[in-house]
């Protein structure tokens, strides 16, 4: 196994000039496309890219346009991980050594629909990097609730009104579900902390076997935020503690960011159209859930 401490860091100054996700039709200010673009710049040209139905396949493959500059394929919605397994097995059979297979799936394609294929892929420990860009709903089909939609979000399937305050369930704890497979490497990241994200993709690139990165990516269209604040919102989510940056390696959890004090959750929620309707009581539910989660994480992981 490669010594992961000695791998050269990739940053804005030394990363490749080549663009592997260019000329796509994603909405202006799309956070998911930042995640895909940066990951492909770290992984390089010799990458097999598999994408299930979702925003990034919808905006990249508009016939006759082809925005991916790597080998890329659209998979079935539930089968992206199994298809990537097949690609990795094919690459191995052909004796290709310096290639990597990567999946870019949304939160729905990972936590809900594509989950059993992903679980199987990790179980078989196929040489695939699975990146889930989490924009917290099915954005491509018009903002429906997914398993990773947080409490209080207004979506078209959980409209806010007299009866319910938007989504009534909390965000699924995907990172720990993946870690429970005893995976070689899993991490959470946010496009608001791009260097941290690049380091994690770089680390996963050098690990042979199944790896998983859960990256928080904003969606101006679905969240009701101005296009220019995409990165700021993704950073705010980490600062107020609703999203955590952590790694799972060699059976150990590691918190990358453990702030003494959180930024106000209410400011973060009030910036977004999807949370506009929330009352103070609803916000207290969000804060209470965050505190419970953090006290458990601090107790068990530190």
């Amino acid at each position: 196994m490669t010594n992961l401490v000695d791998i050269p860091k990739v940053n804005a100054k030394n990363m490749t000039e080549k663009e592997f996700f260019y000329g796509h039709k994603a909405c202006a200010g799309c956070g998911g496309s930042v995640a895909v673009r940066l990951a492909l710049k770290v992984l390089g040209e010799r990458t097999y890219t598999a994408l299930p139905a979702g925003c990034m396949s919808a905006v990249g493959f508009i016939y006759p346009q082809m925005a991916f500059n790597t080998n890329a394929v659209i998979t079935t919605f539930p089968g992206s991980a199994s298809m990537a397994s097949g690609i990795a097995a094919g690459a191995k059979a052909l004796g290709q050594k310096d290639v990597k297979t990567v999946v870019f799936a949304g939160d729905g394609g990972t936590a809900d629909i594509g989950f059993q294929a992903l679980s199987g892929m990790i179980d078989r420990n196929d040489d695939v990097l699975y990146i889930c860009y989490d924009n917290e709903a099915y954005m491509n089909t018009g903002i429906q609730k997914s398993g990773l939609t947080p409490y209080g979000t207004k979506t078209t399937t959980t409209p806010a009104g007299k009866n319910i305050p938007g989504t009534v369930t909390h965000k699924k704890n995907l990172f720990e579900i993946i870690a429970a497979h005893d995976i070689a490497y899993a991490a959470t990241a946010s496009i608001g902390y791009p260097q941290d994200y690049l380091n994690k993709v770089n680390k996963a690139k050098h690990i042979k076997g199944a790896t998983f990165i859960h990256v928080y990516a904003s969606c101006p269209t679905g969240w009701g935020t101005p296009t220019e604040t995409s990165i700021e919102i993704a950073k705010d989510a980490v600062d107020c503690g609703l999203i955590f940056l952590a790694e799972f390696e060699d059976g150990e959890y590691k918190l990358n960011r453990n702030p003494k004090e959180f930024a106000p959750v209410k400011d973060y929620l009030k910036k977004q159209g999807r949370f506009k309707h929330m009352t103070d009581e609803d916000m207290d539910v969000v804060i209470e859930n965050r505190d419970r989660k953090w006290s458990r994480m601090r107790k068990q992981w530190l």
Partner: protein
Amino acid sequence: MNRPKHTEFKFPTHIDDYPTGPQYTAGYLPETNAGWRTFRPVVDHDACVYCLRCYLLCPDGTIIKDNGVIKIDMDYCKGCGVCAHECPKDAIEMVKE
């Protein structure tokens, strides 16, 4: 070639002109995104310190590193304004088209 360029689309006239898969070859871009833009980024090169934060965070990858100077590919810039908002020196201004 660092980034794909805009290529003119030729309508296939023979079966051999069609791609073998559901897409053309990688980086085949017959359409630009310039028409999406309402505001256009303008770089103040004197204020720019070349920190490359805009280069890192542009969702479309349209910022070009050109020998210590930032340039923008206006064919594919959508005018989202992330570069101007994230610039630590406020060296990028969004100007109405």
